[in-house]
């Protein structure tokens, strides 16, 4: 049963085994191989360093006072570890704007994720297992919506939310995230649900189960890996969003990305807030990344078309 028709489902594991070498290469050949093997290791280490240094720099900068940060580079922590301090984080915990925006991020992200998963799963079930005219066409239309840029909808949606009196509120941000999360959610879940063996559903139907029972007792338990991947993907998508928040939220209802963006107007003088703030905003995504690596990778890769 294929997870998604878009891409194969790779995992963060060594890809296959190293191919067996042809038998007994000559000595110069073996030396050449060893050398090129060494070169490859060195290149790989250099690449890893290039990928780690920027994040490490942010972490180190967030642990230094703004005076230190403006007078010297973060790498001086190696020669003077004494300059490391938790002061920035302490004042961050006393910073009401940042705390409120972090709470807003949670208030926006959790409902957006739950709603997309719930509404998406129900629609996906209908498109996979209920018979009605125009079903395939409808599915194709939904797939077409996956790549639609939000820019082609934000102005009318802003007007609509304004007319409804929710413009600037958390609900407006949630509504927009749900709308633009659904096409991909439906696509991902429908493909997974459609792969569930028909016998299981038939058996449940013959036992007299209603469609809701089948959905709850058969589809969701079997389809939970796809649901988990989708939930993680959607969660990160919303957690990391800046554009939707900028357009639809007022600063009182704004998530952490918005609040930090405000601080960035004066980057170097606010680095003592921006550095730790950015780091705190990364903790949740990074936790998700390490804790649910497999689902995370599946979700992100399958969602690549978005």
């Amino acid at each position, binding site marked *: 049963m294929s997870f998604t028709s878009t891409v194969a489902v790779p995992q963060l594991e060594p890809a296959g085994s190293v191919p067996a070498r042809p038998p007994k290469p000559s000595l110069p050949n073996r030396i050449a191989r060893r050398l090129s093997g060494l070169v490859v290791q060195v290149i790989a280490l250099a690449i890893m360093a290039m990928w780690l240094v920027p994040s490490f720099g942010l972490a180190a900068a967030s642990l230094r006072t703004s005076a230190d940060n403006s007078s010297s580079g973060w790498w001086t922590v190696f020669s003077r570890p004494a300059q490391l301090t938790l002061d920035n984080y302490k004042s961050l915990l006393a910073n009401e704007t940042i705390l409120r925006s972090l709470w807003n991020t949670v208030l926006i992200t959790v409902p957006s994720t739950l709603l997309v998963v719930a509404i998406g799963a129900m629609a996906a079930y209908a498109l996979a297992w209920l018979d009605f005219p125009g079903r395939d066409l409808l599915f194709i239309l939904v797939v077409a919506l996956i790549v*639609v840029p939000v820019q082609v909808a934000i102005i009318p949606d802003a007007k609509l939310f304004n007319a409804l009196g929710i413009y600037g509120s958390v609900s407006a941000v949630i509504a927009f995230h749900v709308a633009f999360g659904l096409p991909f959610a439906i696509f991902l879940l429908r493909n997974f649900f459609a792969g569930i063996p028909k016998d299981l559903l038939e058996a449940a139907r013959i036992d007299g189960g209603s469609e809701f029972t089948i959905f709850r007792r058969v589809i969701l338990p079997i389809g939970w890996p796809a649901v988990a991947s989708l939930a993680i993907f959607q969660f990160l998508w919303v957690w990391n969003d800046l554009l939707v928040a900028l357009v639809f939220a007022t600063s009182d209802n704004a998530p952490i990305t918005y609040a930090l963006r405000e601080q960035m107007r004066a980057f170097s003088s606010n680095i003592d807030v921006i550095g730790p703030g950015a780091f705190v905003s990364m903790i949740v995504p990074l936790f998700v990344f390490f804790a649910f690596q497999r689902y995370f990778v599946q979700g992100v890769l399958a969602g690549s078309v978005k």
Partner: protein
Amino acid sequence: MQGRASDRLRDGRLIVLLFLGPAMVVLLALVAYPIVNTVWLSLFSSDGSQFVGLGNYNEMFTAPDTRRAILNNTIWVIVAPAVVTSIGLVCAVLTERVRLGTAFKAVLFMPMAISFLAAGVTFRLVYDENPERGVLNAVVVGAHDAFAPPSVYYGMSSRPESDLSAVDGAFLTPEVNAGTPVLIPLVGLPFERLPSDARPASAVPARGLTGTVWLDFLRGGGGTAGVIDPTETGLPGVRVSAIKEGEVIATTTTDANGRFAFPQLSSGGYRIRLDEANFTPPFAGATWLGPTLVTPSIIVAYIWIWAGFAMVLIAAGLASIPREALEAARIDGAGEWQVFRHVTVPLVRPVLIVVLVTMMINVLKIFDLVLVLAPDSSQDEANVIALEMYRVSFGGDLNFGLGSALGVLLFLLVLPAMLFNIRRLRREHT
């Protein structure tokens, strides 16, 4: 009996409606209808009061800001997907041969988890212009200085009343005669840059062409300009050339007291030159987020974020290549590069195309990273379509007409990708 069948049919329809209804209502109200509405709004003036036909589209392709945004997005689409895919391919091949391949993958993939905002903050620090603070400029300056060390005396100048002339960064005296010590006073060196081996300046006994280069300035002021006052310091290590008829005859270096001597030049007139190399200013690194480099710099940050994604996708494609194909090529005597070029790449081509198309859609919509990474002073130069759409619609102007036109442009640009997705879907379902 018939009644029950139509009941069941009605029940069936009701169930479809219950399952599908919420999604359809949301999609129609907040996605589908707004698209149509945006097309409509794009034909009207900024507040929607006046029909302007294609006026906004005309403005979009002629106004400097929007043209710049479209041009930049074109650069993005041409460069970023190709580079991300290439790096992804190289790294995917590396993961198969590297010890700790799993860690390697995790490190490269991790940036996918964080927001563009956090990545933007991260790279603001990397790109800090001051080499004392920004790690990239620190590395660049360090590498540069290793090959071309900065000189000690940069920024120094002659006294306005002196007869030294500044030529191409060097200082040149008028013609002087051997036998008379030449006094070359310079000013403008902060005391903390004075070399530690510098000693009080002193004149040289005249034996041939000789002279003194010194800092003609006293701590706390005082002293006489052009005269070696008792505590004034010589400038050691200055490269001095003697020039006759435009040709360099001899070159030497000043000692700790700032003295130089050309004993071999015993008579005649010469001009003395303090070489340019003494005064080259230190290399300050590049202004990564300044007007000229801002777009390439943001693209590099983008590559940092997405290369891991390309790598994981391509690695999955590589894993599905039959080992026999590679073995056969190796046994036939193909080198590793030939195997890569003629066997591996053609076999993963479908995956490479998926990655490229995905990156193109993604890059067309690039917004957050540009907004966060480009300082306000170079935002115009870094502008892209999605950012310009936000700026004209919500950044103060509230020009919903032009904003809608830009939205429609983005929509049209992703249409080919939409068709690509649908075609792929249909192929897989038949």
